[in-house]
């Protein structure tokens, strides 16, 4: 939670929080209709619709409340954004039209970018493994992805996957060799350029000096 410092005005954020917030607001501004986050009425429909909210430490409704309170770090270190399975139940039911799922995506990206997330949660490792496979082959490579992921996180668990792996293999459902796109060289050129594009933040989205105002 935000510490109380007497040197700041009520509602004013410290430097780190205001930088985080500005970066997050930029991410949210890329979501069509992202500004609707201001309209949350804290009704809890998102939490009630979520099939996995029972196992979250901070509910989706509370995520929005914490954001308004200026406490992004608590959000990043919660289980919540990492356990969202992206099923969009909250998004379609929100009476205010807030795209909760997309906001959680933006929060995930922010957390990884700023390196602020619980390292023991496995989602990051899976996403990273997925990205390296896709960049390498242009297509996802299921077996390679799972091997890489388990080697990174819990190598011993690989043994418990053997029975299912064996069954899938027997039924011809495992692609042993990776499938690749033909124009791999050109694809990596595209991706290199995209990486540069990723870093460009338009001037209009840069943090304003007085970014302490609450949403």
């Amino acid at each position, binding site marked *: 939670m935000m510490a109380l410092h007497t040197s700041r005005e009520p509602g004013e954020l410290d430097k780190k929080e205001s930088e985080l917030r500005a970066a997050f607001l930029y991410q949210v501004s890329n979501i069509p209709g992202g500004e609707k986050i201001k309209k949350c009425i804290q009704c809890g429909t998102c939490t009630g619709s979520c099939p996995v909210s029972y196992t979250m430490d901070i509910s989706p409704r509370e995520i929005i409340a914490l954001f308004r309170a200026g406490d992004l770090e608590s959000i990043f270190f919660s289980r919540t954004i990492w356990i969202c399975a992206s099923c969009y139940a909250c998004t379609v039911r929100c009476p205010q039209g807030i795209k909760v799922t997309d906001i959680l995506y933006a929060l995930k990206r922010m957390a990884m970018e700023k390196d602020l997330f619980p390292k023991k949660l496995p989602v990051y490792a899976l996403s990273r493994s997925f990205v390296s496979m896709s960049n390498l082959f242009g297509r996802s490579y299921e077996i390679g992805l799972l091997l890489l992921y388990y080697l990174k996180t819990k190598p011993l668990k690989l043994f418990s996957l053997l029975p299912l792996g064996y*069954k899938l293999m027997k039924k011809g459902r495992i692609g042993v060799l990776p499938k690749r796109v033909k124009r791999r060289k050109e694809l990596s050129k595209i991706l290199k350029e995209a990486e540069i594009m990723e870093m460009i933040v338009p001037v209009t989205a840069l943090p304003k000096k007085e970014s302490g105002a609450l949403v």
Partner: protein
Amino acid sequence: MSYIYYPGCSLESSGKSYDRSTRWVFKKLGQELTELEDWNCCGATMYMSIKETISLVFSARNLALAERMDGDLVAPCSSCYTILNKTNHILKDNFILKAKVNQSLKRDGLEYNLKVNVRHPLDVLVNDIGIEAIKAKVMRSLKGIKIAQYYGCQIVRPDGVFDDKENPKTMDLLFETLGAENVDFSMKVRCCGGMLMTTFPDVALKLNKEILECATENGADCVITTCPLCQINLDGYQDKINKRYNTNFKIPILFFTQLLAFALGADRYETGFEHNLIEVGEKITGGLV
């Protein structure tokens, strides 16, 4: 109308039977599916979690390739379908991101001008080809088969392009017309957990148990689905669920195109039944394939 076919990565390996039966059904109905030349992964939910612009570029490369061809882009995997549609939405709404994406695509002489319509084969089959036209070609009745119609989350959400977000009925109508019986199935758009089966297996096992429970308690002989991830979660983990929850599930999980192919007279290979882990038994096939 011609259709461009985007199989997606899953349909090349774990979802093989979805690929085979979809191609077969379209051919049987006299519709040509032309595979998108040199397509790449759509980026799925995982790329979106790491980098925004790059994930959009990944997905938009396919759209740019499709734009050079004629027709709608048909994506059977629910996740690919949602991601490709979402890319269209984001790029339409945000000219800065569109410029960034096109700047990147230019490195291989590609450009995307937002002209591609992304469709799901279920939508195409029912709304373009039509249930009556399908019925006219049916060779085997599905009478007596009780189905739990499992749409999963990604096909109708977030946008509900061709059906209701909470209570879709396209698949129900299709199979009802072909003689099957749809059981009450309140979990039809509930999430299976997707990749949580890898990252948080305890959570995902519970979700899948609830879906299987709802289907079997309502008397379903099989569950049919539109999504490769739902299929593998429900099909591949029944043993594990039975062990953990002391249950007795042994219910076949089919791609909707597999059952449709069966009704249209496909043989065992063409339906892809051989790839199902929980065997598609006589209750469904009547010993015919």
